C-alpha cells in the first residue's frame, strides 16, 4: 500500500528538471532512488547506495531506517517527512531514497560540484605570502580558513540567500574576538536580503552596505586565504559566498585599502617607505591632472620661470585648452584600461602597445596633446594600480574627473573645494559603525603607529577602532 505522495511529486517535475528515477525491487519492496545526474556524483550513487541495497539479503526485512543505518555507505544522510522539500533536496544535488510504503525518505549528500583547483592570486599578488587563493567552492574556502585558524571559537554561521538561487552564505568570525555588534549587524543585514538571486559576493556587498550610493567602498575584498585569516584575527568578519572566489571583509577603513601583506614581512623601514609611496601615488592619481589644469590655465606663476616657458612651448600646437586636453586624455587612458581588462590575455598586450604608440607617441607628434600631459596621464594611471585593495582606486578614478572639472572651472580655489568635499565625504562615512578614516580621524596614535610600522611585534593590541572583545594580541 502506497503511504506517500513522494513519487507523485517527483513524477510531476521529472521531465522539466531532468530527474533520474532508479527503481529497485527487492523481494516485495520497491525502492526508488532519485537524483539529477548533472549535479550528482553518479559513481557514489551506484557504489554507496544502489550496490549495498542490492547486495543486502533478499530475505531480510528492509525499511527506511534499516537502509539508512545498516545498508548504504553515504556519510552525510538524514531522514525527512516533508514532501514539499523533496524537490529542493534534489535540486541541491542530493539523492533521495524512497520506499513506497514508508512516510519518510532518506536524503543522501551525493552532490557533485565542478570546481577548479586552488590557484595563485590575481588581484592580490604579493612577493612573500602564501599563494593559495579562494575558489568558487565554499567548502574549499572554509577548509583553507580552518587549516590556518585551528581555534574552537572560529564560528561559521550559514545563511541561504536568494529566492531562486538559494546561495549559501557563510559569516565567519572568531567568537571571542569579534565585536558582537558588528557580527549581529552583518548577520541581520544578510537575513534582510530579499532577492531572487545572489551569484557573487559583489551582489551581497551592495545589499549590506549602509548606503549603496556611497562612492567609497565600505567592504573589503579578499582573494587570499591568509589575508582572510589575518582579517579574522584582527577581529573582523568575513563573508563567504558560494560560487564566488572573492571573500568580503567588514568593517573596513580607508587606510586598510592601502595596506599590503608584504609590509608585515619586510623591514619596518621598507614598510614605512612602501606605505608612503602608496599614499603619494593615491594623491597623485587623484590630483595630478587637476593640478596640471590649474597651473596651465590659472596659475602658471606658481612655477619657476623656466618651467613656465617650457610648458608654454610644449603646448603651442595643442588645439585644445588644458581642461579639455586633460579630460580627453584621462578618458582615453580609462578606455585603454577597460579594453585591456575585457580582452583575452593574448590580445591584451597588443592594447598596451597600441595605447603607448598611438596615444603617446602619435598624439604628441600630431600636436594634439602636449608631452607633459602624456607623462601626467601615464603617471596618474600607473599610480592608480598601487593600492592593496583595488576597489578604492575605482572611487579615486571617478573623483579624478570631478577634480579636473572643478579645477578647470575655478582654478586652485576649485581644487581646494574639491579636496574639501572629498575629505568631508570620507570623514562622514562609516563602515558598519567604524569611522572610515580611523585611526586618523578619530586619531588613535597607537593604531596609527602600528599601521605605519606594520610590525606585529610592536602591535601588541588589536586596532582600537574595531572594539574587539579580546584586545590583546601578545
Amino acid at each position, binding site marked *: 500500500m502506497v503511504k506517500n505522495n513522494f513519487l507523485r511529486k517527483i513524477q510531476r517535475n521529472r521531465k522539466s528538471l531532468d530527474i533520474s528515477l532508479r527503481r529497485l525491487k527487492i523481494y516485495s519492496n520497491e525502492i526508488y532512488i532519485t537524483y539529477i545526474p548533472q549535479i550528482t556524483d553518479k559513481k557514489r550513487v551506484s557504489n554507496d547506495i544502489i550496490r549495498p541495497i542490492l547486495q543486502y539479503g533478499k530475505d531480510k526485512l528492509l525499511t527506511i531506517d534499516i537502509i539508512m543505518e545498516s545498508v548504504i555507505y553515504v556519510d552525510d544522510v538524514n531522514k525527512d517527512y516533508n514532501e514539499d522539500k523533496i524537490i529542493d533536496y534534489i535540486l541541491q544535488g542530493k539523492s533521495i531514497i524512497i520506499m513506497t510504503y514508508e512516510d519518510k525518505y532518506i536524503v543522501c549528500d551525493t552532490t557533485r560540484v565542478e570546481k577548479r583547483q586552488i590557484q595563485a592570486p590575481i588581484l592580490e599578488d604579493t612577493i612573500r605570502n602564501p599563494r593559495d587563493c579562494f575558489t568558487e567552492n565554499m567548502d574549499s574556502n572554509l577548509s583553507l580558513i580552518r587549516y590556518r585558524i585551528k581555534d574552537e571559537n572560529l564560528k561559521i554561521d550559514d545563511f541561504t540567500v536568494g529566492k531562486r538561487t538559494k546561495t549559501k552564505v557563510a559569516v565567519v568570525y572568531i567568537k571571542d574576538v569579534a565585536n558582537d555588534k558588528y557580527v549581529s549587524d552583518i548577520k541581520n543585514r544578510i537575513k534582510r536580503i530579499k532577492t531572487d538571486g545572489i551569484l557573487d559576493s559583489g551582489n551581497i556587498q551592495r545589499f549590506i552596505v549602509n548606503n549603496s550610493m556611497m562612492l567609497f567602498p565600505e567592504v573589503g575584498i579578499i582573494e587570499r586565504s591568509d589575508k582572510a585569516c589575518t582579517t579574522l584575527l584582527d577581529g573582523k568578519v568575513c563573508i563567504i559566498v558560494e560560487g564566488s572566489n572573492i571573500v568580503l571583509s567588514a568593517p573596513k577603513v580607508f587606510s586598510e585599502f592601502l595596506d599590503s601583506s608584504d609590509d608585515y614581512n619586510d623591514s619596518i623601514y621598507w614598510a614605512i617607505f612602501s606605505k608612503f609611496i602608496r599614499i603619494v601615488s593615491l594623491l597623485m592619481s587623484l590630483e595630478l591632472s587637476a593640478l596640471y589644469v590649474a597651473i596651465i590655465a590659472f596659475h602658471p*606663476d606658481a612655477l619657476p*620661470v623656466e618651467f613656465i*616657458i617650457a610648458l*608654454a612651448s*610644449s603646448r603651442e600646437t595643442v588645439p585644445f585648452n588644458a581642461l579639455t586636453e586633460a579630460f580627453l586624455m584621462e578618458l582615453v587612458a580609462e578606455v585603454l584600461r577597460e579594453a585591456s581588462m575585457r580582452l583575452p590575455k593574448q590580445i591584451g598586450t597588443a592594447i598596451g602597445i597600441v595605447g603607448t604608440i598611438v596615444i603617446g607617441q602619435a598624439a604628441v607628434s600630431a600636436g594634439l596633446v602636449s608631452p607633459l600631459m602624456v607623462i601626467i596621464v601615464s603617471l596618474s594611471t600607473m599610480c592608480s594600480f598601487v593600492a592593496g585593495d583595488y576597489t578604492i582606486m575605482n572611487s579615486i578614478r571617478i573623483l579624478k574627473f570631478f577634480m579636473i572639472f572643478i579645477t*578647470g572651472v575655478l582654478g586652485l*580655489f576649485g581644487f581646494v573645494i574639491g579636496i574639501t568635499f572629498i575629505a568631508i565625504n570620507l570623514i562622514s562615512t562609516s563602515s558598519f559603525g567604524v569611522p572610515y578614516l580611523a585611526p586618523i580621524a578619530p586619531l588613535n596614535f597607537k593604531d596609527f603607529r602600528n599601521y605605519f610600522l606594520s610590525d606585529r611585534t610592536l602591535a601588541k593590541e588589536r586596532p582600537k577602532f574595531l572594539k574587539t572583545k579580546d584586545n590583546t594580541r601578545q
Partner: protein
Amino acid sequence: MFRVFVCKNISKIYKLLLIFILCFQLCGCWDYRDIDKRSILISVGVDRIENLIQFSGEIAGETGAEGKKNKEVKRVSVYPFVSYGENFEIARLDLINKVPKPEFLGAVKVVVFSKKYAEEGIESYLNRINGEYDYRKTLLAVISKDSPKKLFYINTNKEQSMASLIENNINYQTSHGKALYTTVGEMLSDISMKDIGYLMPYIGLENDSITYLGLGVMKDSKLIDIIHVKDTDGILYLLSKNVKITEEIPSIYKDENLYSLRTTVKKRKITTNYVNGKPVINIDLVIYARLRYQYYIKPIDDKEIKRMEDELSGRIKKYVEDIIYVSQKKYKCDIFEFAKYFKGEYPEIYRKIDWKEEYTKAIINVNVKTTITNLNLYDHNTKVKY
C-alpha cells in the same frame, strides 16, 4: 534607487547646489587662459628717451616648425619688443597694441633700468611692480650702463635670452660671493624704511658680453654713484651671504713667494648703541681663511700663520672701514641697513632721531678676527708639523 536617494537627501542636495552656485558666481576664476595663449614676458627694460618712457624687453616666442621637422630638442626662442609713452600707462598701452596675445608678467626674470633712468629715480616703477599682482616680487633688478633696448636687441646666437644671461651672470657671481642679488621685494622693503639706501647690480656690455661691472648706490631710489667691482670687497664682507674672496699675502721669508688664501665670513655680528648723542655701530666679523696654495712650496711655521691672520684681519678691516666711511661722508646714506639693527635695539631713540643725519656722525667699530683653517698639507705623514 536614485529617486529614493534624491528624496531622502533633497535638503542636502539643495545646500550643495547653493554652495556650488555661490562659488561660481562670487569667486570663480574667470580669467581662464592657457599659458600658451599668452605672451610670456621674460624681461623688462625701463629707460627714458627724451620725454618718453621706453619699455623694452623680451617675449618668449614660439618654436618654429623647423625644429620639429629635424626632431631637434625644442628650444624657446625670444623676440624683443619696444614701446613708448608719456607715462607707464601709455607705454603699456603701446605694448598691448604690439604683442600678439595678452601679456603674462609672472615669468619676468629681470628688470633692467638704464643708468639715466636710475639717476632720475626708480621708485615709481618699483611701486608699479608692487601693485601689479602678477609680477614676481623676487625678480632681479639691475642697472645697465647701456640702454636696455640695446641689450635686448643683441643677437646672442645661442638661442638664449638676454634675461637668462643677466640673471645667470648675477646669480653665478652672487653664489660665488662676488656680487649681490637684489630683488624688487628687498628694494621695496628698504624703500619703506625711508632712512636707508640700497645697492643694485650694475651691468654693461664689455667686449660684446654681458658683464657685471659693480654696484650702483641708490639713495632715495636714485642712482648716486657706481662702485667698481674691484672696490666692492668691503661691501661683500658686510652684506654678502656667501662671501668668497681671494687674498694674496707675500711671505716674510721670500718676497716673490705669495700665499693664496680664500676667505669666508663664518660669523657676522652687528650690534648698535647710542652713546653721547651718537649712534655706535659695532661690527664683529669672524673670518675663516683657507690657504689654497703657495707660489713656491715652503714650510710654514706658527709665526707665519699668525702674521698672515693678522694681515688678513687688518686688510679686511680696512676694506670695511673705508666703504663705511665713503657711505657716511660721500653718499651720506646708510646703504648697509644699519638702521634696521638700530631700530631693532633702540626703537624709541630711532623714532626721535633723524637717522639720515645721525648716520653720518655714527661711530663705527670694526673688529675682524681671522683664522686660517686649512694649510693645504699634501703630506699627512710628515714629521714636521707644517
